[in-house]
């Protein structure tokens, strides 16, 4: 089929941009988790370490999904569960961020 719009390539690039955005989010989450509340808050430090670990794991999983879909995007339909999974990762980062931001309220 003639495809002057280069649809598969544009879709692959869109997935790569999304992976890049997810990486920025992961770095910001880890930084917020580890530089968190003022010193002396023992429970806060444990929470920060846990959240940082979860952020790195979630980022790895989301990037795997992005990568697999970016290399597979083509004429054959096959998005599988990629779309809801990356959305789930976004919601996860939003909740981790809320948890970290709420530390400042205590």
């Amino acid at each position, binding site marked *: 089929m003639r495809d002057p719009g280069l649809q598969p390539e544009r879709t692959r690039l*869109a997935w790569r941009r999304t992976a890049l955005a997810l990486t920025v*989010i992961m770095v910001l*989450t880890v930084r917020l988790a580890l530089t968190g509340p003022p010193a002396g808050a023992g429970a806060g430090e444990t929470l920060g370490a846990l959240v940082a670990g979860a952020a790195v794991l979630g980022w790895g999983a989301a990037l795997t999904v992005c990568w697999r879909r970016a290399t597979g995007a083509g004429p054959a339909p096959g998005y599988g569960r990629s*779309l*809801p999974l990356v*959305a789930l990762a*976004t*919601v996860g980062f*939003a909740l981790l961020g809320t948890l970290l931001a709420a530390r*400042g309220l205590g």
Partner: protein
Amino acid sequence: MWQVIRRWFDPRELRSVGTTPDYRFSLANERTFLAWLRTGLALVAGGLATAQFLPPLPLAHLREVIAVALLLLGGAVAVRAVDHWARTERAIRLGEELPASRFPAVLALAVGLGALLLVAAVLVRAVGGP
């Protein structure tokens, strides 16, 4: 509600509806989803940046409130992106009208109002001075 969420994660269910469209339409729908997802990610990044780079504001906890609002808005944009993608894909497969949505207008108004409030806060601070 769980039924709907389960269907997002089950691609067979979506493929059993109607006929397989020209793949270019599916890819365009997928890219629209990704553009919305990045909008959500940008809001989440704004919330994370607010929480760690904004100095504490004169009003108690205002910084944390702004951060949490941006984070939750970003999460909501991501959830809505999946829902809209699934409904659009369904409509394309069935040859129906694409789903209409008020969400972009609501989001634009919310972001615009938030920006206006912050502009007002900055001006009050600049004029009043500490």
